[in-house]
């Protein structure tokens, strides 16, 4: 201890931790309850109750958003607030900002819980919330970030433990992903269109969607693992060195893997390849981290028999290992051809969310509760019972989804007669064959829910009547620490960074160009490497000193982390944004929707049809035989948002237009089983009574024009006339088929939209030049 250090007593803000923990448990129950309900709806369609607010398409986004942002979000904030204060030996910088963060986040969740069942959605998975809520999320996230970095700036521990690194990566990357994927132009207070369309929107969405898993459901929980597992096991992490490698390789690689959600689709092949390769490489850091977590329990394995905290942590980390093995496996194109759009994906995400996130949350809550309320856990037996019930629940859920997914994948792609005819031409064969597995899935989910209710009861009994306590610590404040701080510029303008930039630039020139330019790139690369070797020789180890100083300076460290994730984002997204759309549409171009079709599309999105129906025919034999020619990039370029979907509970409808008469859709939406016996699709009776909101169309079309959709400059009257004429034509046709309906009802607009799907115009394809082919 230096003579400049002074002793100080610090009381931590554990009230915020308690609040987030209680909120997580409450919203966890809600998320699981809705999950069990929608799982049951897939077995018994009657549980949709013919009510718009309770249909699968509207409740599934509520379930996913509640599980991700409400349950795991609140849990992660609880863990971050608790561990950060202790790791940096400082109280959270601002109690006011903590309060704003907590109450703001809960207000956002309540707003989501109200708007999603009302059908107010952006139509993009895990990004459904309407634009005013998006802005609130961004503001609250910034409040959290300010509070976090302010706390780091006031810290009394110079070094930043690896858990803090994971928290920094979370804050920076989630902000970047959320803002880019939610860029929209509002058409009203409750509706907007995303600025990206078609393939661009698909790529941005899954860049976000995949990394929401990575940086919302994984990196913060890894930080929590690196703090709470050593605490619970009462021994340091197995290998701190491995945790450093784990962090950098994970952060650098994860961001590139998003395109694996779009394999065999209209996405350019080079992006699909990138997504697949980086997903496979994720195996290494993920398993490095998983093993590091498990081996932290070395010498403490005997405690697992009695300690529920360690049980949950050990099982949680094991599920992390399983999920991160399965994910790369499913990213291999050949495997993905079988698994994608099937229940296998659903099983995969649930082994991650229920097993990894849910069990880590449970372990952390059981560990925290006695400390936050200064009382022994109410019942260890109940916690153990929760563990076994939850574990069996997950296994039932995941195993049934594996079997269901593989069955669906095999049946829907099976062919006969030398691959020219589908073996199961009726899509419903796959639905009815897997129905019993839906029962097992619902049972597994219900068991997990009951286990979680046990946790809620146990924590409540622990806290009831107990005095909440805030932890305190006595620290020596080192005044010399401030002198070690690097400026932001100092973190970048130095030899290691300059050399790294030169290596990247020369390597890119070498790889991307041909002839003499490529040769110059190689020469530059060799010269830089030689310069590095010379510099290291003469500097006498100062580079290591630079890196060590970086670890004690959160700002340059944050900027470096941001750079690591920006690179992956820029390389993937920028080329698809700047590309001239018209020149790359594979010979077909989407015809913009008529005003009525656009209104029908908004109804399709409102009802969440994309949760069960895809609009993307993959370049696979089974898909092409079943649904028609594979989808071309040009067919969806004006779709804001894209509606390619991620799951086929029902068939793909990319070429639905003209396949059936209008009356087929009419009766199918009224009662799907009347047309398709065995279907689990809900009835949509309200579409037959509600009027189409055609008065909103002029503004919607104006916004679409601004987004680049080539609509003529219609007047309001022209739009109204177009709507009326098309409605009348469809209603007359329906009447002759025995379906009496007022022309201005929503079902008419929806039929107009469905009958448009798959219609496009052909355009001349420019031949690739010799120069392009040589690249």
């Amino acid at each position, binding site marked *: 201890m230096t003579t400049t250090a002074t002793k100080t007593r610090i009381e931590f803000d*554990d009230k915020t931790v308690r609040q987030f923990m209680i909120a997580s448990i409450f919203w966890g129950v809600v998320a699981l309850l809705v999950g069990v309900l929608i799982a049951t709806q897939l077995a018994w369609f009657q549980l949709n109750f013919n009510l718009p607010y309770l249909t699968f398409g509207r409740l599934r986004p509520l379930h996913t958003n509640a599980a991700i942002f409400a349950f795991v979000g609140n849990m992660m904030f609880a863990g971050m607030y608790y561990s950060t204060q*202790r*790791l940096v*030996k400082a109280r959270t910088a601002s109690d006011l900002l903590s309060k704003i963060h907590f109450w703001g986040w809960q207000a956002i969740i309540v707003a989501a819980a109200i708007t999603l069942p009302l059908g107010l959605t952006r139509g993009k998975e895990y990004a459904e919330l309407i634009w005013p809520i998006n802005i609130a999320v961004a503001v609250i996230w910034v409040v959290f970030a300010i509070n976090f970095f302010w706390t780091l700036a006031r810290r009394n*521990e110079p*070094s930043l*433990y690896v858990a803090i690194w994971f928290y920094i990566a979370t804050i920076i990357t989630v902000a970047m992903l959320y803002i880019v994927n939610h860029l929209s132009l509002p058409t009203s207070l409750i509706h907007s269109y995303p600025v990206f369309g078609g*393939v661009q929107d698909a790529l941005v969405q899954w860049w976000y969607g995949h990394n929401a898993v990575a940086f919302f459901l994984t990196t913060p929980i890894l930080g929590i693992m*690196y*703090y*709470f597992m*050593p*605490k619970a096991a*009462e*021994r*340091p*992490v197995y290998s*701190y*060195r491995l945790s*450093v*490698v784990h962090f*950098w*390789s994970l952060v*650098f*690689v994860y961001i*590139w893997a998003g395109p694996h959600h779009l394999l065999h689709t209209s*996405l*350019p*092949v*080079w992006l699909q*390849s*990138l997504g697949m*390769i*980086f997903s496979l*490489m994720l195996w*290494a850091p993920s398993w490095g981290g998983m093993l590091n977590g498990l081996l932290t329990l070395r010498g403490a394995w005997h405690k697992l028999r009695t300690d529920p905290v360690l049980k949950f942590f050990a099982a949680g980390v094991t599920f992390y290992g399983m999920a991160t093995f399965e994910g790369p496996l499913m990213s291999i194109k050949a495997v993905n051809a079988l698994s994608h759009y099937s229940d296998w994906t659903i099983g995969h995400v649930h082994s991650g969310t229920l097993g990894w996130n849910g069990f880590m949350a449970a372990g952390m809550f059981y560990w925290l509760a*006695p*400390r*936050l309320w200064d009382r*022994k856990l109410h019942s260890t037996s109940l916690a153990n019972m929760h563990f076994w019930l939850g574990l069996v629940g997950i296994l039932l859920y995941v195993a049934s989804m594996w079997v269901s997914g593989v069955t669906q994948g095999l049946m829907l792609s099976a062919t006969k007669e030398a691959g020219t005819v589908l073996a199961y031409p009726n899509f419903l064969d796959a639905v009815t064959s897997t129905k019993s597995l839906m029962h097992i899935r619902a049972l597994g989910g219900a068991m997990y829910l009951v286990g979680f209710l046990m946790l809620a009861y146990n924590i409540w009994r622990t806290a009831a009547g107990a005095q909440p*306590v805030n*932890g*305190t*610590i006595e620290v020596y404040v080192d005044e010399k620490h401030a002198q070690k701080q690097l400026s932001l510029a100092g973190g970048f303008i130095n030899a290691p960074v300059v050399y790294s930039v030169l290596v990247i630039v020369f390597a890119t020139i070498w*790889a991307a160009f041909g002839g003499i330019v490529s040769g110059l790139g190689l020469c530059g690369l060799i010269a830089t490497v030689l310069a590095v070797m010379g510099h290291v020789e003469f500097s006498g180890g100062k580079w*290591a000193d630079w*890196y*060590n100083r970086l670890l004690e300076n959160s700002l340059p460290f944050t900027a470096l982390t941001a750079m690591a994730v920006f690179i992956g984002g820029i390389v993937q997204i920028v*080329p698809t944004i700047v*590309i001239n759309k018209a020149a*790359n*549409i*594979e010979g077909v171009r989407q015809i913009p929707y008529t005003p009525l079709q656009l209104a029908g599309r908004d109804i399709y999105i409102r009802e969440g049809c994309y949760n069960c129906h895809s609009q993307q025919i993959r*370049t696979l034999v089974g898909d092409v035989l079943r649904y028609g020619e594979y989808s071309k*990039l040009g067919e969806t370029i004006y779709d804001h948002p894209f509606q390619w979907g991620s799951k086929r509970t029902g068939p793909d409808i990319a070429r639905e237009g003209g396949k059936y008469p209008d009356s087929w859709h009419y009766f199918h939406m009224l009662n799907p089983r009347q047309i398709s016996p065995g279907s689990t699709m809900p009835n949509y009776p309200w579409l037959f009574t509600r009027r189409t909101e055609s008065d909103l169309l002029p503004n919607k079309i104006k916004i679409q024009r601004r987004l680049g959709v080539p609509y003529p400059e219609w007047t309001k009257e022209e739009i109204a006339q177009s709507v009326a004429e098309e409605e009348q034509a469809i209603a007359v046709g329906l009447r002759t088929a025995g379906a009496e309906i007022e022309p201005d009802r929503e079902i008419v607009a929806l039929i107009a939209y469905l009958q448009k799907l798959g219609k496009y115009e052909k355009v001349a394809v420019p031949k*690739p030049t010799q120069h*392009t*082919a*040589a*690249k």
Partner: protein
Amino acid sequence: MFHRILVEDWQRVLTIISFSIFGLVFLLMLLRVRRLPREEVQHLENLPLQNDTDDHAR
């Protein structure tokens, strides 16, 4: 660029470049952590175990 069925030659190098970038990052970090001083590692890995008053309140 967007013609999916015709795989252009330049796309073949992407997998190699991807692996090289990852390998480079991985290798650099491995080399770096090998050079981390033992005392520094011990200090960092023990940070979560430095108890506060909560740890006595079970």
